[in-house]
């Protein structure tokens, strides 16, 4: 088979997937209000996607913050502005590193969980059984998981940034001896409310993207063991790429 026809097939596949994703997301969007009518289901999924990701987010946040402290101090010491450590770190974490790293971790932990749960239900006919019982699996299974992810992501982002800034402080103030008051006041004078909102908006956007991709892949997984595995892998890969692309787009729009 020539490369050209392979390319054509790949493009056709990609377009078909993109079309399916569009139809899927518009249906999901359409039934979103119904998702809030079942708070118990929703709470369970917020737990599933958010509370269970807390450990990995906080540990990662702490270490990312500490590394930023080390690297940032080293960098700034070369140009003699160590006091700006707090500012530089806070801005970087708030606007870029926080949302992006949280999204990638989220895709790896929660995204795969969502995809494989739904994929497994697909493979064991549970979703079909629901359809036969005249229960819309989109409303019962997919939507709560999607909304759970969307709600959890901004919260996780906020927690990540907060923990990481403490990590920076741990290294900068406790270890390198930067004056604590100066650390925080420098940060306060240069970080704007718009920076905080930028970070949270990104968290929300990434949350929508990663959750959508996860539930889509799970829902359309081939009903076999390998199919579910492939869907899980694809979730992580596509989520990662989507996050980085959206990061650029959102940053460009907000700046």
């Amino acid at each position, binding site marked *: 088979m020539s490369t050209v026809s392979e390319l054509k097939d790949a493009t056709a596949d990609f377009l078909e997937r993109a079309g399916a994703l569009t139809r899927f997301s518009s249906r999901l969007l359409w039934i979103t209000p119904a998702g809030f009518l079942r708070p118990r289901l929703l*709470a369970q999924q917020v737990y599933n996607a*958010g509370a269970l990701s807390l450990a990995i987010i906080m540990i990662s946040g702490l270490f990312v913050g500490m590394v930023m402290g080390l690297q940032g101090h080293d960098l700034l010491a070369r140009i003699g502005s160590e006091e700006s450590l707090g500012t530089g770190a*806070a801005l970087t974490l*708030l606007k870029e590193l926080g949302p992006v790293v949280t999204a990638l971790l989220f895709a790896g932990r929660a995204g795969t969980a969502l995809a494989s749960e739904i994929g497994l239900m697909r493979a064991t006919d549970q979703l079909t059984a629901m359809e036969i019982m005249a229960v819309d699996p989109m409303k019962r299974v997919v939507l709560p998981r999607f909304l759970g992810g969307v709600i*959890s992501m901004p919260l996780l982002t906020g927690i990540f940034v*907060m923990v990481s800034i403490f990590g920076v402080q741990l290294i900068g103030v406790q270890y390198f001896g930067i004056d604590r008051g100066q650390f925080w006041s420098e940060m306060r004078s240069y*970080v704007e*409310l718009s920076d*905080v909102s930028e970070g*949270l908006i990104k968290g929300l956007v990434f949350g929508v993207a990663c959750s959508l991709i996860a539930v889509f892949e799970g829902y359309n997984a081939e009903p076999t063991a390998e199919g579910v595995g492939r869907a899980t892998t694809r979730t992580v890969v596509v989520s990662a790429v989507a996050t980085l692309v959206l990061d650029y787009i959102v940053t460009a729009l907000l700046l």
Partner: protein
Amino acid sequence: MRKNRAIDVSTGLFVLLGIAAIVFLVTQISNREFTSHGNAYKVVARYENVGGLKVGAPVKVAGVTIGRVEDIGYDMTVFKAVVTIDIDTRYDQIPNDSYFNIFTAGLLGGQYIGIETGGSEDYLKDGDQIEFVQNAIVLENLISKYLFGQAIKETPPGQAPAAATGSPADAGNK
């Protein structure tokens, strides 16, 4: 049902933690020193060059921020930038012959307005015009002035200086 309770509690804790983190970020990290617009009076200053001064830049006296730049416009009739300044009403004893100068924070930092207090017994009130200003220092002008000054030193008397670069408005006083 016990499992359900545990899940609900954990979820609630998670959501609270998330909201707390966001509140922390908003209040502890970001810049909220001077937000009250209600208790401020306005004065207007005109500059030949505002340089990199931005709206929202602080207005300081003796290093203390007492106001903000509220608006920067351009007056075509007098060819000057018009800067509207909000000053906190707590500080209503600024002499009306004070200098409102544009300074640069640090070597390459943002620009702000620093007030050098004068000796007048009359104080600034809402709507006043500032008489004494010092324009922003534009780096290029500084460099060309330096070069021009060097050229003058090196030419023998009676001849025109060689390094006249013909730069625009200088950084002089009013």
